[in-house]
């Protein structure tokens, strides 16, 4: 009775601070949007629904099926969550799942959680839902076919993002990490696709109302088709490119100065230079200010402690 996580959770320490923060900003923005959208559209009933659905995704990740040679297929769930709950609620549910995995089981780190959210929760939901939404008026078999492709691509999207983040953090070689991640996840994605398709088929057979017109699932706007389609397209184009000509991609990132900024893992305060700030003197000022803030915070806390004690 062991808990086996999907193999994509990045632990703390494996991404540079810059990349971690960038991913956090991106994820926070998307999640913020998701929160405002769900707050607007969902009734009070949705709170227990999303909570139990998060537990469902968590539990469903334990369902496996034997493939061959002791390996087995698993579910990540991003695409499934978005398809059955709609994209925004699906993203929130995945956010809760990934956050809990990090908090409770240390599956994935805390500072790098922004990246994990992006890779496994947000991107997978966007791709999964976008492609699914494009089949609104299609027959059931077309729908299921597209869902299979969408689920597979959602896993590939997560894998590619993970690989790129690791590369940009200077933790792994582009030549190795992209083909390795994509190769492994091409197989994992097959399991994802098979389980997602038959789970949706099951729902279509037993409770078609949950996916029909007017359901939460159908409420996602048509714009998702473009969002999901674009991400999927980017993955389809970028994956072979990154695998076949990693040096090219490396050079471009190098020329843009992106890698240097991203890899400054050794810390924004290293030698009093803060990345993103070109001028050395500006950097010194900012670094000094951060130092002053820390000292101020310590003084404040000690002061509060003394006050609390005198009250107690």
């Amino acid at each position, binding site marked *: 009775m062991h808990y086996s996580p999907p193999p994509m959770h990045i632990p703390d320490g494996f991404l540079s601070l810059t990349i971690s923060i960038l991913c956090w900003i991106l994820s926070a923005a998307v999640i913020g949007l998701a929160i405002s959208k769900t707050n607007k559209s969902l009734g009070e009933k949705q709170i227990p629904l999303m909570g139990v659905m998060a537990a469902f995704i968590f539990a469903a990740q334990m369902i496996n099926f034997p493939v061959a040679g002791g390996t087995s297929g698993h579910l990540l769930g991003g695409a499934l969550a978005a398809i059955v709950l709609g994209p925004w609620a699906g993203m929130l549910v995945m956010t809760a799942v990934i956050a809990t995995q990090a908090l409770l089981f240390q599956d994935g780190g805390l500072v790098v959680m922004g990246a994990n959210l992006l890779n496994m929760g947000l991107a997978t939901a966007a791709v999964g839902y976008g492609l699914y939404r494009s089949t609104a008026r299609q027959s059931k078999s077309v729908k299921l076919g597209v869902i299979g492709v969408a689920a597979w691509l959602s896993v590939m999207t997560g894998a590619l993002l993970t690989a790129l983040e690791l590369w940009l953090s200077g933790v792994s070689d582009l030549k190795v990490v992209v083909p390795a991640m994509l190769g492994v996840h091409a197989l994992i994605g097959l399991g994802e696709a098979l389980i997602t398709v038959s789970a949706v088929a*099951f729902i279509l057979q*037993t409770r078609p109302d949950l996916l029909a017109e007017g359901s939460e699932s159908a409420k996602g706007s048509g714009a998702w088709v473009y969002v999901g389609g674009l991400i999927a397209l980017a993955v389809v184009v970028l994956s072979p490119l990154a695998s076949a000509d990693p040096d090219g991609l490396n050079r471009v990132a190098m020329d843009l100065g992106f890698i240097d900024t991203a890899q400054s893992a050794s810390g924004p305060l290293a030698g009093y230079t803060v990345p993103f700030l070109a001028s050395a003197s500006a950097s010194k000022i900012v670094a000094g200010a951060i130092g002053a803030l820390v000292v101020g915070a310590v003084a404040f806390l000690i002061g509060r402690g003394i006050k609390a004690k005198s009250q107690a």
Partner: protein
Amino acid sequence: MPVSHARSEIKLEMNGEEVLKVNELRFAYPDGHAALHGVSFNLRRGEKAALVGPNGAGKSTLMLHLNGILQGGGEVEVGGQRLTRQNLPAIRALVGLVFQNPDDQLFSPTVFEDVAFGPLHMGLPEADVRARVEAALEAVQMSAYRERLSHHLSVGEKKRIAIATTLSMNPSLLVLDEPSAGLDPRARRTLINLLRELPITMLVSTHDMALVQELFPRTIVMDEGQIVADGTTAEILNDEALLTAHGLEKP
């Protein structure tokens, strides 16, 4: 985990009178909780026995050992064959396990698919599978429900389908965990009649002492991972001291 088994070499035949032999079975859950402390008993062909005891006595744990879902210390012999890792798949064909909650047993969308799962997994040809499904549904009087969605059935109906899912595997021993829980009196009555008429060796755990009295000639009492009494139902139900000591009540 279910894995794809190569062509099975092991052919099990039921020989001898003893369908089930359990010897000194011990088991502790991974968290360290010892649930079985040396349980031994036998079951003869055609015998129907009740397994009673308070919550947490270890009844369900014991039942999960009978077809190797859990494997502890001690021995389990089914049809004269000792249960080992190798013959696990073959033993599972002999022991039909029906869980307490039929919802846990029925995982396919339609009744047909659920009853067909066992035979299909055994690798039977399609015609055989269909024949077995028909026979099993017939036995529980649910032939008309073949194409229904399991999800929408009543508890009593689900219960009968759950039994059919194991009958379709032609088991030599039927093990039922609390079959009457949650049924209304009518559904419970139907179930009692069904169990009475099935000509299979049976071990049934229950809290329903009236059911025990009505249906089972033999009763095994468990408490705290041990068998504390094993005898004719009449004897056991008349032993007031025994019943109160183990949180049971006379019907």
